[in-house]
């Protein structure tokens, strides 16, 4: 059914584009001279810089891993299936191997980095508008960003030779050298965004490249565009058409911009029709996923012990079509809206992936394991009888059929495994077991499902020592269609009491049946559940004194039944180095923000805070200075604290707990 709808939708895209192209012939076209004379060109350049104000560093990157300076004892144990022991609670990874234990400090193998800069980029945007008739215009905006890469960078080449091979899996442009700040690539190397040119330190894209046709209350836009249905700071309850681009300073730019610079533009056709107070807004477009920062870049949010296979192209998601309709109307002080969107969730899901990377076990224990494996009977189903049979020529080949590859720069200890599983809101124990279940070749190399955190730590320490260092985990990203329904209502108060007058209430509710979430076990079967998201926004402009323009005050609350603010399922919450995630029931977020212009609006003070009731807070005070003559500046501070109270992994803010910074943006427009 859905396929049929979107097959029709794709034809509609083609039809509408054709209409947009053909209709002008029916319009009185302007002369070339007038088109040129009326053309508008505008450009701005901006320097963005953010410096860390704390010694904390992004733990998701190699050089700033939490275990860089921690010496961890790795005691090895006899694999029960190697020794032919019955697999039970008493025997599982409980017999120490006396000769192969060590103490490892990760920083001795992986060079540490120490950065003061969180972000430094020079950015320019140029826009051109051409009006061909009263009804038809072209808008083209090109954005270019250059990052001088002044950071203290991790370079994967520094691991060459470790564990025999260095890092050999994954996209070389992302995993085999210094960080790649801008390229968003599928596993085939193609750019995820069709109108984007990017390299390690630059990107050029077209946030707007479209033709617009207008007739009466109807406006049609066809081309590459962003569609903003958002109504709130930090929240995106009904802001559904576009994914987000986290490559540019994550969500730590000026909060009051909401997501205007973050929405990933998509090739789409948008039709807006207004009659009276009724507005219908619809779109059909090519699915574009959310863009996540690359490994070892300052705002990377995926632990760099993972190698990610992006299946956007290989999964044929690049040919998928999204579409949605939003209708709004007002009646006096009341307003309402309804939204329906059928889309591929742009965040997608991650799951264990067969790596296809053959890397040998090294070191003393690794050599022993290789030998033990070699003496097993070949061409025999080792997954069933791992003590006697093998399924591959050697452990490296066996492991290449699994998500775990013996490579440097991965997880080195059981402690690290659980620490980072908790950080990523995954279930460290069940995640491992799920990999064993889904990739039976792990059993062929003596891996077994674990029953407890302690047992798995023992097993992991043993496996890491046998690998000659660490294992990297391979995961893949896939996308899933969902139908999203939304309802909203707004009300503007009228009261003779000034404090209660003209408060704008806006309630938005999103319901998504059978939404797919990243399974905290990284199972290839995503978690599926019905999700409710509800947001209440209260806005008010109030004038404190006659001398200052009115201040804008906003209070927001959001309830989420299944996932956190960035879409991770709440069942992955609550883990730690010693505890498996036990989840939280639902998430609650509160936003308080204010904007106070100074007389003449030369200066504007802003304040925004995002509070997770489970114990995290982001506070952003900002001063905007409209210098004049085309110049402007913004200075702001991001205070991040994910450890206010409770368990660190019970709140979303702790995922960026390292990001305290002072930032400045200097712009010149001409």
């Amino acid at each position, binding site marked *: 059914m859905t396929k049929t709808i979107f097959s029709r939708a794709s034809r509609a895209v083609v039809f509408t584009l054709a209409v947009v192209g053909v209709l002008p012939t029916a319009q009185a076209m302007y002369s070339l001279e007038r088109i040129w004379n*009326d053309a508008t060109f*505008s450009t701005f350049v901006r320097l963005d810089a953010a410096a860390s104000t704390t010694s904390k560093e992004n733990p998701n990157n190699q050089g700033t891993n939490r275990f860089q300076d921690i010496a961890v004892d790795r005691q090895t144990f006899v694999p029960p299936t190697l020794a032919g022991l019955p697999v039970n609670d008493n025997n599982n990874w409980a017999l120490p191997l006396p000769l192969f234990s060590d103490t490892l400090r990760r920083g001795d193998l992986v060079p540490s980095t120490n950065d003061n800069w969180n972000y430094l980029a020079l950015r320019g945007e140029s826009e051109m508008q051409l009006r061909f008739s009263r009804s038809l215009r072209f808008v083209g905006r090109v954005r270019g960003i250059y990052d001088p890469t002044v950071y203290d960078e991790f370079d994967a080449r520094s691991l060459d030779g470790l564990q025999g091979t260095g890092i050999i899996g994954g996209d070389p442009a992302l995993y085999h050298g210094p960080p790649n700040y801008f390229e968003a690539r599928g596993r085939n190397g193609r750019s995820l965004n069709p109108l984007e040119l990017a390299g390690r330190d630059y990107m050029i894209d077209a946030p707007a490249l479209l033709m617009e046709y207008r007739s009466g209350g109807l406006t049609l836009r066809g081309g590459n565009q962003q569609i903003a249905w958002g109504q709130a700071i930090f929240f995106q309850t009904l802001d559904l058409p576009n994914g987000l681009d986290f490559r540019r300073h994550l969500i730590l730019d000026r909060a009051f*911009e909401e997501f205007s610079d973050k929405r990933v533009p998509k090739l789409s056709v948008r039709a807006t029709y207004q009659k009276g107070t009724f507005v219908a807004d619809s779109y059909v477009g090519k699915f574009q996923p959310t863009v996540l920062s690359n490994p070892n870049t300052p705002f990377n949010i995926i632990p760099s012990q993972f190698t990610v296979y992006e299946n956007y192209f290989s999964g044929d998601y690049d040919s998928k079509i999204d579409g949605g309709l939003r209708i709004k109307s007002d009646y006096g002080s009341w307003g309402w809206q309804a939204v329906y969107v059928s889309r591929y969730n742009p965040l997608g899901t991650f799951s264990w992936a067969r790596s296809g990377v053959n890397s040998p076990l090294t070191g003393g224990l690794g050599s022993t394991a290789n030998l033990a494996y070699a003496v097993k009977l070949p061409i025999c189903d080792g997954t069933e009888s791992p003590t006697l049979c093998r399924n591959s020529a050697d452990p490296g080949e066996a492991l290449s059929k699994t998500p775990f590859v013996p490579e440097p720069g991965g997880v080195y200890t059981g402690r690290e495994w659980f620490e980072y599983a908790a950080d990523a809101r995954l279930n460290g124990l069940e995640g491992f077991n799920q990999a064993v279940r889904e990739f039976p070749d792990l059993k062929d190399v003596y891996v077994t499902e674990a029953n407890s955190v302690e047992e798995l730590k023992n097993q992991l320490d043993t496996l890491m020592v046998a690998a000659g260092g660490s294992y990297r985990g391979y995961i893949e990203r896939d996308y899933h269609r969902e139908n999203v329904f939304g309802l909203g209502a707004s009300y503007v108060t009228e009261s003779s009491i000034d404090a209660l007058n003209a408060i704008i209430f806006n309630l938005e509710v999103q319901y998504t049946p059978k939404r797919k979430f990243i399974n905290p076990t990284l199972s290839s079967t995503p978690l599926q559940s019905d999700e409710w998201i509800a947001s209440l926004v209260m806005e*008010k402009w109030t*004038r404190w004194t006659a*001398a200052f323009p*009115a201040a804008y005050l906003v209070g927001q609350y959001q309830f989420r039944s299944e996932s956190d603010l960035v879409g991770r399922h709440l069942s992955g919450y609550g883990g730690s180095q010693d505890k498996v995630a036990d989840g939280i029931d639902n998430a609650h977020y509160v936003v308080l923000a204010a904007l106070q212009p100074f007389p*003449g609006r030369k200066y504007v003070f802003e304040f925004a805070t995002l509070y997770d009731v489970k114990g995290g807070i982001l506070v952003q005070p900002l001063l905007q200075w409209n210098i004049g003559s*085309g110049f402007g500046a913004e200075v702001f501070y991001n205070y991040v604290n994910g450890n206010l109270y409770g368990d660190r992994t019970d709140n979303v803010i702790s995922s960026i707990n390292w990001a305290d910074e002072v930032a400045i943006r200097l712009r010149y427009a001409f």
Partner: protein
Amino acid sequence: MLMRKLTRRRFLKRSAYWLTGAAAGSALWPALAERGDIAGLYPDEVMSIDDYTHGRIATGGIIDAGNVEHVKALLAPATYIQVRDMGRRLTVRPTTTEYMALGPWEYQQATLSHQGQARFDARQNVVASDGRPWIGGHPFPNATTALELFAGLTLSWGRHDASVFAVKEHNVARSGEVDYAYEWVWAELAPVARCVMEPRPYWQAHIDKLRFNAVIITAPATEAGTSYVNIWPYDQHRFPELYGYIPDFRRVRQYPTNQRFEPLVPGSTLYLSDAWAAGDPLHTWGNYRIVGRQPMLAGISGGWNASHPNWEHGVHGGPKGETFFDSVVEMVPEAIVAEAEPIAFERAPVSKKRVWFDARNLMPIAMVTYDRQGKPFKSFDGCYGLYEDGDQRFLDGQHPYWSWTYVHAFDFHSGRITRMEQVRGIDGGHRTRVHDPAIYEEYLTRGAIMRLGRV
């Protein structure tokens, strides 16, 4: 010093002339309606600057710091200061006498046709004799109260059924530096009291509304797309609905309706409340009163710069020679001075406004607002006129276009000046035009400001 005393003495003598009712006053309108010209209705002294100054300043001459004392009593306070201290110069034109040259032809006609048919209903809204909304033209051409003056002005700002003004704005610091420059579109459309556009006098679907009004910033890039749409109810006790598109947000945001004393863009001294000296619903201000009548020097004609392809004006004065437009003034034989106070705005920065109305067409020719301490806050002066100059004309149909041409807004506190001029067009294909029904869909809906906002 002697000259000042003489001037003051003469002014007091002339003030007595106006206050004792010797001015044309209420007798003006019947005579003007009958003759279509004010010739002979006023003493020569207030019809001609030559007579007023006994030849010290001649028609066609320049008022500058050297001779401004002779006409101090004829100038709005800020204009006087600007000429005396800031290098502003005013070129004196002959007095316009013809009634039809003082407004759009159809509006002037409607005023004549509909005279005597307007009244205030129980809610103090202007209605026609049948109790329905007003039917076009000025409802009270023979206004005797300040409420009638402001009611007529609030009913129709630009005196066209629909207007798009392409505007260039320059904001000048006390240092003379132009530190903020903007281009914007001002659009207004009346669904009632229509004189030209069909259906008239009412667009039935919106008969409960007074006007649609939008301001859309088109340049510079940092502010481009900033837009506001006001939808005015006909009931002048109610605030307009106010929607804004802020490029930073990429979406239309609803604003509380009573926030009308905010600069729309950095560096500007303009508030929505300042528009046309009647930017807010009539009954959100009160204590309307006439405080005097006097002759004035103001821009009534000749402000259209046909010699520039885009109608842009030359500038002069101030520390860098860019503070003022090249300005023209002429004798306005009778200006009605009226005041009003904001009564529906908590903590408004303005305590009252004083507006000088040209008694002939009841358009505002100057305004001063006062801060909460009662001190002058901002001053506005500008120029209207027919858009014809010799054999060059810009028509709004069958007749030469009549409109405002430029405005100065002076902030007494900061010394900043915002100067705006109506131009032929600005980048993006926005052209000054009137009486085009397409203006509604193009500029005056929420969909329109979203479309015109940053893509």
